[in-house]
């Protein structure tokens, strides 16, 4: 018995050390990872998608304008095959009134995604059956061999090697700022772009994998009776993305769901000379226009609560103030003036 207890204590200490060490070794937390930091059932909207989500939508500004909270589950070039699992994950912690799904990547070749795009999703998910399902469900469309799935089930097989890059942030811990919105010196850059012309009539049949993923997602949404809005961000598109999105839009609309395409809205205007930091991403000026328009749209179309007088949501206000202060410092302008435009 004494030996048995000794073994149990040994294992407990081992797991404590394991947890501490790998918390330090884990780097590059994505917004998906930060999603878990939000208190349970505190989000009114969950917004899922690639980098357009965290670069275009300023969650703190939307909160300041209308008082509803938006959680972001976004990562670079997020594969469309991950969306279902992200919805499932968010369902475990939040009961949002609305899910927003970014459609920019709906036609991207799933078999050709780079290692890292799927990792940013999978590695950010907490260990659970959903994580296992996500690994199997996402990787089956890639060229990753089944015997290599083990590197996804056990992330330490990859991350153990990151001891070389440990810095103070890893040791003291990193906190999400601006509630998931990406703001930095980089996003204040103004890079003039060629105006992208959207044509609703141009369509290409979705590849079999993409079609299967989309249909599977719609089925999931139906079965779980989720309130979902699909959006197509305003930006430049390459590799027939527009044609695929138009086809996907038809499929989604046929199933009774709304698609809000910012490329064809008459009353939403962004300036391709001033509002982008690269061809596919709005800068802070474009993002402000997008957020103001979109949050107003959401407030008027959905029954979203206003938490601005609720002390439990003070962190949202604080993050908005932090954003404004940093914006003012970096740009030497006043963000409130920008809102007046």
């Amino acid at each position: 018995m004494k030996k048995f207890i000794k073994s149990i204590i040994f294992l407990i200490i081992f797991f404590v050390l394991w947890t501490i060490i790998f918390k330090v070794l884990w780097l590059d937390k994505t917004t998906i990872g930060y999603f878990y930091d939000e208190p349970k059932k505190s989000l009114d909207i969950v917004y899922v998608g690639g980098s357009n989500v965290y670069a275009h939508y300023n969650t703190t500004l939307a909160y300041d304008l209308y008082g509803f909270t938006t959680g972001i589950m976004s990562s670079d070039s997020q594969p469309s095959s991950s969306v279902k699992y992200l919805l499932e994950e968010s369902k475990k912690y939040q009961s949002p009134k609305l899910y927003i799904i970014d459609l920019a990547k709906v036609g991207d070749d799933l078999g050709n995604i780079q290692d890292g795009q799927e990792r940013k999703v999978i590695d950010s998910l907490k260990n659970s059956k959903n994580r296992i399902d996500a690994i199997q469900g996402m990787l089956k469309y890639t060229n990753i061999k089944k015997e290599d799935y083990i590197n996804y089930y056990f992330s330490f097989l990859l991350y153990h090697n990151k001891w070389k890059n440990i810095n103070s942030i890893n040791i003291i811990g990193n906190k999400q700022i601006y509630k998931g919105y990406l703001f930095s010196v980089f996003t204040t850059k103004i890079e003039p772009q060629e105006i992208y012309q959207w044509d609703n009539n141009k369509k290409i049949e979705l590849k079999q994998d993409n079609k299967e993923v989309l249909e599977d997602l719609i089925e999931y949404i139906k079965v779980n009776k989720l309130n979902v809005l699909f959006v197509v961000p305003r930006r430049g598109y390459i590799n027939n993305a527009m044609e695929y999105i138009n086809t996907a839009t038809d499929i989604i609309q046929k199933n009774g769901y709304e698609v809000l395409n910012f490329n064809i809205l008459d009353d939403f205007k962004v300036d391709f000379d001033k509002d982008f930091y690269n061809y596919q991403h709005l800068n802070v000026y474009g993002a402000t226009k997008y957020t103001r328009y979109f949050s107003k749209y959401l407030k008027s179309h959905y029954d979203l609560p206003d938490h601005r007088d609720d002390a439990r949501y003070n962190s949202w206000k604080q993050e908005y103030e932090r954003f404004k202060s940093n914006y003012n410092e970096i740009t030497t302008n006043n963000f409130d003036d920008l809102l007046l435009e």
Partner: protein
Amino acid sequence: MALTSLVFAVFCTITVAIYFIVPKKIQWVVVLISSVIFLFYNNLTVGTIVQALIVLLSSYFCGRLIYKYKENPKKSKAFLILGILLILGQLIYLKYTNLFLATVNHVCNLFNMDYQFQFVQRNSLIGISYYSLIMIGYLVDIFRGSTRAQDNIFKCALFMTYFPILSSGPFIRYEDRKEELYGEHKFSYESMCGGLVRILWGLFKILVISQRIGMFVDTVWADLNTYRAIFAVAAILFFPLQLYTNFSGSIDIIMGISEIMGIKLPENFTVPFASRTITEFWRNWHITLGAWLRDYIFYPLQKSDVIQKLNKKCKKVFGKKVGKKIPLYISMFIMWVAIGVWHGGAYTYIIGSGLLQFLFIFLEDILGPISKKINNKIGIHTEVFSYRLYQTIRTYLLFSFSMIFFRAPSVSSAINAIKSCLMLNNIGTLLNRSNLSSLLGNIGLDMKDFIILAGAIFILFIVEKLVLKGNVRKKLFEQNIIFKWTVVYALIFAIIIFGCYGAGYNPANFIYRQV
């Protein structure tokens, strides 16, 4: 199934768990089933089943017949020869066809004949070189009367395929291991802890040291024109350490698993790099292979009529002292060629781990007395630290040199490697800062890796020193719990964090697995 893979860890865990759950009488059946799974893992074909059956049935039936006719030496010997021929025949067919074809091609070249044989691909089972020799030893032991034949074919199969030793040994003898293999074993907390610590130490040696050195050595060997001079020398000097940490680390894992199951295996290494001569080195390196070849090749040769007759003739012609040495060297030569051939079906192995080792031992034997006389005359103390260090370094350098051939894909490539060490032109350019950092960058190791490597080698050195003084694990378990656990946790996390495994690394396969 690499010994350092997660699959193997899971496989062993399940095996050990079932082993201690089932009635003790059938524990050996659990090990047999696991061994069969391990043997055919990813390699289950009609051909591989036939291979295994040839060895098993030859060993089992010939063993029984040798034992049955033990009073009739002629018959008994006939069955021994038949058994050996069958086992050796399949081994030669599967492993050495290309060596034979290469030899024929060389001969054809020599006589300017156009014909060249194409090399063939043979799919052989893991551990074929181990279990074939082990079963030959089994037949010889029955013939000699040192053991009796196993009546149960399944028990015979377990002896042949005992899974921990399939990938890298050690060689076992039936008489020494039968009680443990087929006996009943109670779960022992102490054996489990001892076994696990030994496994951890093996993993540390393979994943932290060997794999890291391997990244350097492999990169240099892949491009000896770019990585010349000091890089080539460093790769050549590092390779024995890579080989040792890989090989002895694998043995540690194997011994650890067996220890948990209550099966004690013979040690295969006793700090070989502390050896002062090549002769001593081979007493401490791959000990069980040396013992097998001594018992089943060297001694029988020495006792054979041919050698005995030669002995007498040589004594007559060259005198007693020199005359008795000539047949001895002939037997040694044959044994070392056999060691070389066993290591692989290529000339590089025959030269590297056979002929050169023989040459070194031969020279040690010839020059030893002369050197002793000179040392005495000029008053050099041989039992002082500095002289012992010189001898140890000399032994390491000689072994490193021989391993150039072992490591090289061909003899010409081994010669290129030696030439590369001597390519000292533009050495300044080679070693200038930007070139150096680019070359090191291509290796995939940075300064932090080299620091970890240096630290790990230092720990290895300390542990090996302690091994020379006694049982390190026993000493560790005598310590207070805080110290003991700290060491074990440090070992576990050193492996997990600093080990070279997972995405981006090749599985840490045992270097001898190709055999």
